[in-house]
């Protein structure tokens, strides 16, 4: 009985950690620009697909992973430079629609440049499950959890200790004041797109050994990551982490104890319920206006 519960929990935490990483990407761009970047899921896809094809070219895995992340970051920069920046001053809704267009474009480009098939990456350290209290967890899940923790700590240090990080936070609070204080806000926007491309592609590479990767892998993950970000309070990095874990665990617990048919429904009901009572999300503060 307990073993079963533990199994559901492990599964939930693994998927939840991925939702969290994707959600974090949403949070960072939202912070810097108030844009919800719906191409976030495509960053996930690009990371996984690029790694697969670089390995096929004969590259060793660590190099392929590094290059794949770099490629995705460049795509993130390009998205900001050539699609979002020229439309600056346009209403937020327009910018959001631009990111939706970009996501469709990236998906199509991936199908043309690579292919429409499914690909798998070798697990980082083997496929032998680790047994804990009767439940099993894959070493790859530990990689996902470990990397998520490292990334979150690194982000905290970045935002609180570095000048660039502080500049991003300052811009999110008040772009005009930040600009008057000499912060290059258009650089901040560029950096935030690069950063969330980095997060997305890392997530895509980490899950590829478990979930496979293909041109459409980002659609559902992007949606779930967005839900995580909204649940936690848009623009709150810690909120995105909590939101991701809540969505992931509620999915597997529902699938395990109620019915797998209602798995997604329950996750979304929780989100609706939370937003009903706390319109700004779990970490958004009750009705407080951004200062």
């Amino acid at each position, binding site marked *: 009985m307990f073993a079963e519960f533990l199994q559901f929990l492990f599964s939930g935490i693994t998927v939840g950690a991925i939702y969290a990483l994707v959600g974090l990407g949403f949070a960072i761009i939202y912070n810097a620009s108030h844009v919800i970047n719906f191409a976030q899921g495509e960053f996930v896809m690009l990371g996984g697909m690029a790694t697969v094809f670089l390995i096929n070219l004969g590259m060793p895995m660590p190099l392929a992973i590094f290059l794949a992340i770099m490629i995705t970051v460049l795509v993130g920069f390009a998205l900001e430079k050539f699609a979002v920046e020229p439309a600056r001053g346009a209403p937020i809704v327009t910018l959001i629609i631009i990111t939706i267009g970009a996501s469709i474009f990236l998906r199509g480009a991936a199908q043309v440049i690579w292919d429409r098939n499914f690909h798998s990456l070798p*697990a980082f350290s083997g496929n032998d499950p680790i047994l804990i209290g009767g439940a099993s967890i894959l070493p790859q899940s530990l990689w996902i959890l470990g990397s998520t923790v490292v990334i979150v700590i690194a982000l905290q240090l970045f935002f609180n200790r570095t000048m660039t990080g502080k500049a991003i936070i300052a811009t999110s609070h008040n772009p005009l004041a930040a600009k008057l204080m000499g912060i290059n806000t258009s650089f901040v926007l560029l950096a935030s797109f690069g950063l969330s491309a980095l997060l997305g592609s890392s997530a895509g590479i980490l899950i590829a050994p*478990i979930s496979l990767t293909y041109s459409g892998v980002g659609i559902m993950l992007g949606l779930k990551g967005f839900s995580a970000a909204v649940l936690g309070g848009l623009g709150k990095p810690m909120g995105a982490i909590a939101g991701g874990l809540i969505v992931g665990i509620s999915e597997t617990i529902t699938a395990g104890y109620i019915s797998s048919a209602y798995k997604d429904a329950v996750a979304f009901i929780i989100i609706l319920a939370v937003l009903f009572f706390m319109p700004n999300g779990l970490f958004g503060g009750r009705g407080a206006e951004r200062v």
Partner: protein
Amino acid sequence: MKSFLKRAGLTALGAVTALGLGIGNSTAQETIKIGSFLAVTGGASFLGDPEKKTLEMYVDKINAEGGVLGKKLELIVYDSGGSPKKAVPFAKRLINDDKVDILLAGSTTGATMAVIPIVQKAGIPFISFGGASVIINPVKKWVFKMPHTDTLAVQKIFADMKKRGISKIGLLSGSGGFDKSCRKNVQKLAPGSGMSLLADETHGKGDTDMTAQITKIKNAAGVQAMIYCGFGASTSIVAKNAKQLGVKIPHYQTHGSASKSFIKNADGAAEGVRLPAAALVVVDALPADHPQKKVATDYKKMFETKTGTAISSFGGHAYDGLMIAVEAMKRAGTTNKAAVRDEIEKTKNYIGVDGIYNMSPKDHLGLDQASFVMVEVSGGDWKLLK
């Protein structure tokens, strides 16, 4: 000046059109026209692309060998993009303007169903490459289809289970059209086959982890085997999850998993998974005396040397459709639509790459579960089960 040019242009256009029509009319008497609309591009292009290549390849081959009834075949293919909306005008154009003799078309069930009323009204034989059983069930006078149905796959799996004394099963299915239809078939056919369904789990589209559902199936008291209905990436994910959880009961999947990428992407976890597959997919594993060995090997060789890509079972549907149509025309000795339709319906013991077809006025598919072979993944390849 302008109006003069315009008039000159129009005249020229008229002349070209007249010329074009003239050529069209003169060739119509010398060729047999095969009309097709396929999902050559778009989401279902993995169906339409090999189908188009197969048709082109074999029409050329037949023509090089002298054609049919002393006439050359002429293939007209339109790209429907898999959309039923586009398929309808193409079907009308093929029937009314191109005046084709037969339709070998419809990569998807949706596109096929959309044109059936037109085909029935025009009275032209139509061989479809769509998957679902609704195309031929109930029987429609002018409509035939080539691919196996999911009903056949489920029957084949149940037959194998019975042989092994399995009667209590757990089902996991995805949420795509094929997955749902397969699930319905399992639910419907289980009682009649002496199977009891102890667990009936589903997962969402694009889900990355099904361990919760498989844990439930594994822990259902008395369950003896697990079936997974689905295709695409999730087939490999399910195999991986089952291995992670140490599932010991036999694990069955459907012909939706019958591709090498299922084995490759499962990264070793597909070992021991059993599934029904078309002979074409596992042609190398077939024994030399298997009736389909020769035809499937020949098709595979031809397709792979001409296109440089691996065969899929989808191109095979186009091969069988074309051959059945050609043989029916030869038997009829004419391209008269009604006569050809009658002969297609009388197809008996046609050995194709998809199976051995025996059609009848009640059965416009003509395949039974013998057209599937049961295979098990072993050593990273297919092993034929007896």
